[in-house]
């Protein structure tokens, strides 16, 4: 089961089954202590960073840099999908894929938060022109 962990040196927050041995922010060793989700929320929110569409786009552009996939070069498609993602976040709480529907099982629905793990999907795997279901991410060509 995933838990929240706080670096006692720099307050870096980690969410996972185990804490990292080394804090990726301050490099301290064996620095993480388990905390409550309420505490994690208070420490990380608000961050003061306005996470609008432009910021999200730059985040996923950075995310794809060292991966075998890229953000779809079709800008109109990307614009439509970002519209859907942000509408879903506003109306349904998280940036759920605009081309799938939540089941109302929260854990199950976390699989639909963009970027999802599309590497395991049949629309991406073993395909030269593979892409995530909605087409926001495509294999680098």
């Amino acid at each position: 089961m995933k838990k929240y962990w706080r670096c006692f040196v720099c307050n870096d927050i980690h969410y996972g089954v185990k804490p990292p041995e080394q804090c990726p922010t301050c490099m301290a060793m064996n620095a993480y202590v388990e905390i409550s989700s309420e505490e994690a929320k208070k420490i990380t929110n608000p961050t003061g960073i306005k996470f609008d569409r432009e910021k999200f786009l730059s985040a996923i552009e950075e995310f794809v840099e060292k991966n075998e996939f890229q953000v779809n070069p079709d800008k109109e498609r990307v614009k439509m999908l970002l519209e859907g993602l942000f509408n879903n976040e506003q109306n349904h709480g998280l940036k759920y894929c605009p081309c799938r529907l939540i089941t109302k099982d929260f854990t199950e629905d976390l699989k639909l938060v963009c970027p999802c793990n599309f590497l395991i999907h049949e629309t991406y795997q073993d395909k030269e022109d593979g892409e995530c279901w909605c087409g926001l991410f495509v294999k680098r060509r």
Partner: protein
Amino acid sequence: MKNLIMFWARECPHCKHMMPLVDRLENEEGITFEKLEIWHNEENADLMRSYRDIIAPKCGGQLRTPTFLNKETKDALCGEVEYETLKEWASK
């Protein structure tokens, strides 16, 4: 009573692609789809979820859009398909 449903989403590019093909099918073949938007209408979303057992096995285990559902034959087709594929499926 309509037996064919198209579950679609407003910001889904696949749905945008398929909509003219559905319109063409309706005009040329007289086949009618009940078109239900699922991200901005909770009633439609609940209806789609109620057909999960039929839809998911045909759609990568998920509820994806667009999904074409035949309520009578309990068959589903999802994603972008060629016009002829949709026509054949809808004519069954």
